[in-house]
């Protein structure tokens, strides 16, 4: 048996392989369920119900999918240029911190809601971009490996986040009232700083958060930037062949900084959406936002979407659905570890299937000479 590169990738494979992977995953997970004494079909039924069909299910899925769309887009933007920004996690935290500060300050000073939200968006982008530019600048000027630096900065960002509310009386921390003395909490955003959501009157009401809309808009912008502009072309060339790009006179440093900045800004926007759309405060609890690992899951989302910004939105929705369903499934008769195993099998199959799009498996000893190239 051998694996060889496909010379051409047939179009039908791009649809058939993910579909096949999913079917395989369901069978493989079904075997695990059977071995552990669970009913596979009713488990799958519960997953679909919890993810899409129950009253309010789509809204819950969107809550999980929105941050994944942002971190997925952040990863896709950087990875397209082979710039491995693993730091969407920390950039999201930083965006949340700056956006929350903007919301608290401006919302409390009587600014109109639209302006406050705009300021929060800008602040979130700036916070995320600034954090991403640290590994970006190190890479551009000193050729430091951005994988390591961006990853390490995630931990720093998480500690900063916890520190602001748990270990100091900062601007973000609620210090008034008895409750504030029982457990450290953040200030709640004033009403003028809350992001609105659009209601779709179906299935018990689906709330479309503003952040989800922004994510779709950002996806289109990134798609346009990377496929329809000179900037995108140059980024692509730099990713594929840095030498060739240099000989062609493309500015490598500038491009690294720009792409890292964009990537960080998108992740930071995800942080702003966390604050404005969902938490309405800075979620600094180590058991809260930091336990969701949106930044890391975003990398999986981007990979499954083949770094295509438009596909990222779709994949984020599906992974969000999977995560949402996991919470519903686990319980006294269904261990949370098993939920993790099922999610793992599904993701692993989906990613593993990718191999079959680019390579093919040949079984047998001889190989036609024409394809040997």
């Amino acid at each position, binding site marked *: 048996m051998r694996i060889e590169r496909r010379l051409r990738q047939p179009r039908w494979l791009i649809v058939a392989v993910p579909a096949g992977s999913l079917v395989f995953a369901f069978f493989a997970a*079904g075997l695990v369920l059977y071995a552990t004494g669970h009913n596979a079909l009713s488990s799958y039924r519960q997953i679909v119900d919890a993810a899409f069909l*129950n009253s309010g299910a789509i809204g819950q899925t969107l809550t999980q999918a929105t941050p994944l769309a942002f971190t997925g887009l952040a990863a896709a933007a950087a990875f397209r240029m082979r710039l491995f920004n693993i730091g969407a996690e920390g950039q999201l935290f930083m965006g949340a911190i700056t956006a929350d500060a903007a919301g608290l300050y401006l919302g409390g000073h009587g600014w109109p809601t639209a302006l406050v939200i705009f300021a929060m968006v800008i602040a979130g982008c700036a916070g995320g971009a600034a954090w991403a530019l640290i590994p970006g600048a190190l890479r551009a000027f000193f050729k430091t490996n951005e994988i390591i630096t961006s990853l390490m900065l995630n931990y720093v960002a998480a500690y900063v986040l916890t520190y602001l509310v748990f270990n100091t009386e900062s601007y973000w921390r609620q210090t008034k009232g008895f409750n504030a003395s029982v457990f450290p909490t953040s200030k709640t955003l004033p009403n003028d700083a809350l992001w609105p959501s659009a209601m779709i009157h179906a299935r018990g009401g689906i709330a479309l958060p503003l952040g989800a809309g922004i994510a779709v808009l950002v996806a289109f912008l990134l798609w346009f930037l990377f496929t329809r502009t000179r900037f995108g072309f140059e980024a692509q060339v730099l990713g594929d062949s840095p030498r060739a790009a240099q000989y062609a006179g493309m500015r490598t440093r500038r491009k690294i900084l720009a792409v890292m900045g964009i990537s960080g800004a998108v992740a930071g926007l995800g942080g702003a959406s966390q604050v404005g759309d*969902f938490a309405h405060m800075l979620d600094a609890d180590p058991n809260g936002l930091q336990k969701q690992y949106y930044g890391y899951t975003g990398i999986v989302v981007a990979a499954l979407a083949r770094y295509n910004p438009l596909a990222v939105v779709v994949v984020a929705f599906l992974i969000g659905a999977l995560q949402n369903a996991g*919470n519903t499934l686990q319980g006294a008769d269904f261990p949370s570890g098993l939920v993790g195993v099922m999610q793992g099998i599904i993701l692993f199959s989906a990613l593993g299937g990718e191999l079959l799009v680019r390579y093919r498996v040949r079984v047998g000893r001889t190989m036609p000479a024409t394809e040997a190239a």
Partner: protein
Amino acid sequence: MRKRKHALAALVVAIAATGVVLAAGVGAGSAKSNSAFKVAWIYVGPHNDGGWSQAHDAGRLYVQKMLGSKVQTTYKENIAVGAQLQQTVASLVNQGYKMIFGTSYGYFSKAFAAKYPSVLFEQATGTDVAKNLSEYFGAAEDSVFLSGMAAGAASKTGDIGYVVAFPIPEVIRHANAFTLGAQVTHPGAKVHLVWTNNWFDPAKEKKAAQSLVAAGADVLGQNVDSPATGQFAESKGIPWVGYDSDSSKFAPKSWQTASVYNWGPYYLSRVKAAMNGTWKSGFYYGSMKSGFTGIAAFGPSVSAATKAKIAAKMKAIENGSFYEFTGPLYDQSGKLRVKSGVRMQVLKGGTNSLYGMSWLVKGVVGSPKG
């Protein structure tokens, strides 16, 4: 060719087998009785963490055992505050759960409870009481004080390490009670703190224990949820005082005792009240006398003299003749915080109340800010 055929055959069999399994399972599990009262618990860590969440799950099982088929209980574990909690509650309500116990602070607020007016919420360790939101906890400071006495007696040098979660009044009062207890059996004992900023993080807890021992602690205690500290203590042959549950099996030789919670009877009374319509929201603070808190069975290395001292203090606490948080109490800098003869109260008294304590007593080494 042979191999290929075998592989294909195996695949076909596997697919067919799964298909049969799937088909056989249709419709089986969904026929649960609808008349049972559905109650759910939400845990911050795994249900079998060997500490806090496990103690709550023992309470859940007690309810299930006592009420049998009249109730249907479940739990959700490792639930993070924020988006994940909101999702979890929404899906529980969707599945018909009428009563939800949240066993960590920050899960439910008044505004959150108001979103589900027909569901009864109960939260451990908090103070938010609303029409459908109760708060409950117990006087663990009394039992932690007793477990501190065991730590003090086990220490030769008087340097005791204490692995602690968050710099909040709950943990601060336990650290204080632990220290006051240790000083009874070992006058002048010092309790060194290392904060983990998490309730359940075995890796961090182990590191904290390591650093405490490296700094000279010869006994370890904890106010975190996992038995990682104990496992490390066992590997070093150092006495260990646990917390929340009897975790002696994780460190049979090092085990001294632990302050433990018995949540079951409270849960049973609340679920019963909810079922017959007499449930009222409130703030419950269980005592050692009522059996809500207590200490676990002693380990093999605890001396008879220590056991007798602890038993005597326990009796004194239960009959009200002794209370560890009675003045004079001095803080770390030696400043008098609670005047002689004054007893600290649960909610009243600002930073001099059990729920507002923000300072550490004399003998604790570490910052109350984390």
